[in-house]
């Protein structure tokens, strides 16, 4: 059998706004191998969650085109009953906001057990409880017996995120999607949750899609990185190659936005991701955010090109790019 766990082919996810559909994920193609960690980075609104939700097929009102193959089974076309066998079992997800992702009226223990119950009927009541306590221990919950009986509002945000992680890994999923698992948390708690994810990465043997804003985390944990902008992958490469040789102007601007030592201001490229409705659908989507580049350099239909083994970038004219306000740093950082 091949080593390929997830293969996404020409995936487009569109939402209806008014009378028309607009693609929040636009023609994304990527693969994830077993046990591999793929980082996905991109600004707010670039379609990272939309992609993650598409893989889990959690969108209720979206038009999804293309293929999502998990162990060669197409999730896009799958029957709901088959889908429900896979969700929570073969694939699972950790959500962005732990404060709202748990049922406020259900004790913690039951929320974890529900996942066990749905996919492992052989496990009895006792077995489920035993496994739940085990999971609570695994995700670093102190006094699991007590937390088992508690309700979400009695736990802190960090604790709740641990519970959500416990739910996700309950059935040893092969694919684990973590959608910005720390964004909603305090900085100190963020570090703890990241430690946990790091630790679990060694323990659970899952292919992981790690969505984050934190390039430091990506550099440390991911094997490969995909950079998303306006619903598209603009650059995807093994992690060392991406950091050593970022080619797309957007990737470069993101790398620049990592706070360097002694520098308190983030260097973020000016402007924001355009809203779905206002996305330029022809020509390069990023062009409008680098107005100082001579228009003649832009491509009409930028496609992903392989520039070195495993390193794809949606641009052939990257050599023309520069950032006018701090070229020196650029030269040092990029080398």
């Amino acid at each position, binding site marked *: 059998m091949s080593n390929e766990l997830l293969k996404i082919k020409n995936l487009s996810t569109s939402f209806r706004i008014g009378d028309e559909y607009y693609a929040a994920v636009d023609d994304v193609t990527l693969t994830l191998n077993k046990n591999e960690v793929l980082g996905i980075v991109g600004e707010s609104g670039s379609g990272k969650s939309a992609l993650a939700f598409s893989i889990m097929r959690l969108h209720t009102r979206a038009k999804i085109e293309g293929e999502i193959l998990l162990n060669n089974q197409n999730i896009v076309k799958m029957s*709901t009953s088959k889908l429900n066998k896979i969700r929570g079992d073969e694939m699972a997800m950790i959500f962005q906001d732990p404060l709202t992702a748990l049922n406020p009226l259900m004790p913690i223990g039951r929320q974890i057990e529900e996942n066990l119950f749905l996919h492992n009927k052989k496990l009895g009541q006792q077995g489920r409880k035993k496994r739940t306590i085990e999971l609570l221990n695994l995700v670093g919950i102190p006094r699991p017996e007590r937390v088992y009986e508690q309700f979400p509002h009695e736990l802190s945000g960090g604790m709740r995120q641990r519970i959500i992680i416990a739910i996700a890994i309950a059935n040893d999923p092969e694919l684990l999607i973590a959608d910005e698992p720390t964004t909603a948390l305090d900085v100190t708690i963020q570090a703890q949750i990241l430690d946990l994810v790091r630790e679990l990465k060694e323990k659970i043997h899952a292919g992981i899609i790690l969505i984050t804003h934190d390039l430091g985390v990506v550099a440390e944990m991911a094997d490969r990185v995909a950079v998303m902008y306006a619903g598209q992958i603009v650059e995807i490469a093994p992690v060392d190659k991406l950091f050593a040789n970022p080619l797309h102007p957007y990737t470069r601007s993101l790398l620049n936005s990592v706070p360097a030592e002694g520098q308190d201001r983030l260097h973020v490229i000016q402007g924001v991701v355009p809203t779905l409705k206002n996305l330029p659908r022809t020509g390069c989507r990023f062009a409008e955010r680098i107005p100082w580049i001579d228009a003649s350099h832009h491509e009409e239909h930028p496609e992903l090109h392989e520039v070195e083994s495993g390193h794809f970038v949606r641009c052939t004219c990257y050599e023309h790019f520069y950032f006018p306000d701090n070229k020196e740093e650029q030269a040092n950082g990029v080398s």
Partner: protein
Amino acid sequence: MWKFIVRRLLITIPQIIILSIIVFILAQMMPGDALSGLIDPSIDPAAVEQQRERLGLNNPWYIQYVDWVGGILQGDFGQSFRFKMPVTELIGQRMVNTVLLSVVTLIFTYLIALPLGLISGRFNDTLLDQAITGYTYIGFATPLFIFSLFMLWIFGYNLGWFPTSGSVAPGTEPGTIAYWLSKVYHALLPGISIALIQVVSTVQYLRSEIIDTKQKDFIITARAKGAGEQRVYNKHIFRNSLLPIAAFFGWEITTLITGTVFVEKIFSYPGMGLLFLESITQRDFSVANSLVLLFGTAQIMGALLSDIILSIVDPRIRIK
């Protein structure tokens, strides 16, 4: 939870005291007093004055208030001027009827509200939902007493399926099963009429509550676990949506007890509401005041009940 309930109970005490003071002031402002209901106008004024002194009616107001409260606590609400009987006895008879009517109404309200609200929330924007929503709009637009008249006319007079007045068939032996069946039978038509109109707010509330809960993040979590639609609804959406409805319950009871006034009139149903109307038109103030006191107390108790129910079903309150 107990802490919360005790604290909540303590709040009701000042509420009730304030209510009683207001009712007492009302009673003082109205013409006549406990005596005027009892005595014959031809009796010698001097003798009346002597009686007044004896009954404490010439005492300062605060002593009278304490006496009055003391009497109420012992179940003495004074005398009815019109019926020439103790108010307590009079209200007691009527209260049984109103409570019965309220229970019947409540049962029908929930029998109608739960399925309609759940269906229309779950399948929102389908034809079925539109039909149910249409009904709620009609319900909102229809005045209860006109609808009651209409029901009475169709099912009471035209079809003859239900009695058109009273609370029990004449001649039935009190306390027998036949007597109670007859009582329920008499409460049925007014109860259903109130329920059909009053239910619409609960239906709409439940509907929007479900539509709201449906798109909460924890529902996505449940789906991500592989829970099927049925399970998502039964275990996650319904429970969370029913919570505010449970809190409604106490409130619903009070609006029923105090709000059936005109319906009782239309169905000539001898409950507290009808008694209230009669006592006002007949200037039977001791009765009217006692009823205001009871209605007010019911209101306070209903709110208390709502909060207690909520504290039992909602763990977020239970803990505090």
